[in-house]
């Protein structure tokens, strides 16, 4: 449902004359955040933008990056710098990608808020991982709930001693 908000905001900008998508007209841009379950197609057509989760059709440009890189991009980081650092992968015309980023910047949307809607699942997944890791390795814990509590505590207080942290780095 978050992409509905995004679509409304972008089209409001276009309607108000605050954004010109003439150069994007006819382009479909695939956008994926590697660390979140978020893949979108931005379909720029008929002087409007559709934001859809249907990414089955081929796009003109593919943009893949992590959520923190995306946020830094919105805060002024240059695409060219991120490309050099391999923090962003773009297949297709970089100028088109830049136009979309510029548009997203000008929309002044609270993307951290939008992204937080997706991180819920990630956190839930991490909790699941902790439970699974501890279930397999610890015989001293009495219940899965205790295992989750202890796992989270060690992750928050001393990440380097956390089983989750260790598993991530092995």
């Amino acid at each position, binding site marked *: *449902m978050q992409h*509905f908000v995004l*679509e*409304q905001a972008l*089209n409001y900008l276009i*309607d108000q004359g605050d954004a010109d998508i003439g150069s994007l007209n006819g382009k*479909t841009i695939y956008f994926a955040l590697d660390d979140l379950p978020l893949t979108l*197609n931005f*379909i720029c*057509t*008929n*002087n*409007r*933008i*559709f934001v*859809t*989760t*249907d990414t*089955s*059709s081929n796009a003109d440009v593919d943009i893949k990056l992590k959520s923190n890189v995306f946020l830094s991009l919105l805060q002024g980081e240059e695409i060219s710098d991120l490309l050099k650092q391999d923090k962003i992968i773009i297949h297709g015309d970089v100028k088109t990608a830049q136009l979309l980023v510029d548009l997203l910047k000008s929309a002044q949307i609270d993307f951290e808020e939008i992204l937080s809607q997706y991180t819920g699942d990630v956190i839930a997944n991490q909790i699941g991982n902790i439970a699974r890791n501890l279930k397999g390795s610890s015989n001293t814990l009495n219940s899965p709930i205790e295992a989750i509590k202890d796992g989270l505590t060690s992750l928050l207080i001393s990440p380097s001693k956390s089983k989750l942290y260790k598993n991530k780095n092995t």
Partner: protein
Amino acid sequence: MENTTHFGFKDVATEDKQGLVRGVFDSVASKYDLMNDVLSFGAHRLWKRYTVASSNVKTGDKVLDIAGGTGDLAIEFRKKAGESGKVILSDINAAMLAEGRRNLTNKGVFGVEFIQLNAENLPFESNSFDCVSIAFGLRNVTDKDQALREMHRILKPGGCLLVLEFSKTDNELLSQAYDFYSFNIMPKLGGIIADDEESYQYLAESIRQHPDQETLKNMVLDAGFSFCEYHNLTGGIVALHKGIKA
């Protein structure tokens, strides 16, 4: 029986369905809005509002609302398309169209055109509309695939199709409650308020016969649309499918 189709849970000759559906809507036309409010507890207005908000219709756009009935969507589209736009309210049923005309006039909405038409054979040029909508109408169409192809044909490249329709909930508890409500309470209310229990029995049956979300999505894509996604509303009791013509 050869060349049959569904009319609720009954199999009927394909050529008979249109007349049977017409009979249902002739019967319920005058109480249609009241019944929708009662049966959906007013939720149909929210579903329709969400549909129009999803349309991305702009000032100057040309919009066709198919099976538009009493004109709920057309009124909202008219506000979005403005004086320079064009909104057509269409329905296969003359009685429903007359109700729509009366409703819009009573609400002081002018500038909407009214056309009686069959969704399977739209009397418009190809590539001529920015948006085509059909709310709670597709399940009554005999040849849904042909209707979707026609909607695709008349949309401009970049045009948007909106199909708002009853669908399937995957919540077992909600599904059971909804089944009980649909088959036991809804027809009775139809009998009491609209003096037509049978038509509301058909309504409940036709909802169950309608394709589920994924099936309808594939039908939209098969009709030629490049993109299609759906949003479940009220736990999937209703779904909004949005197709985009590239």
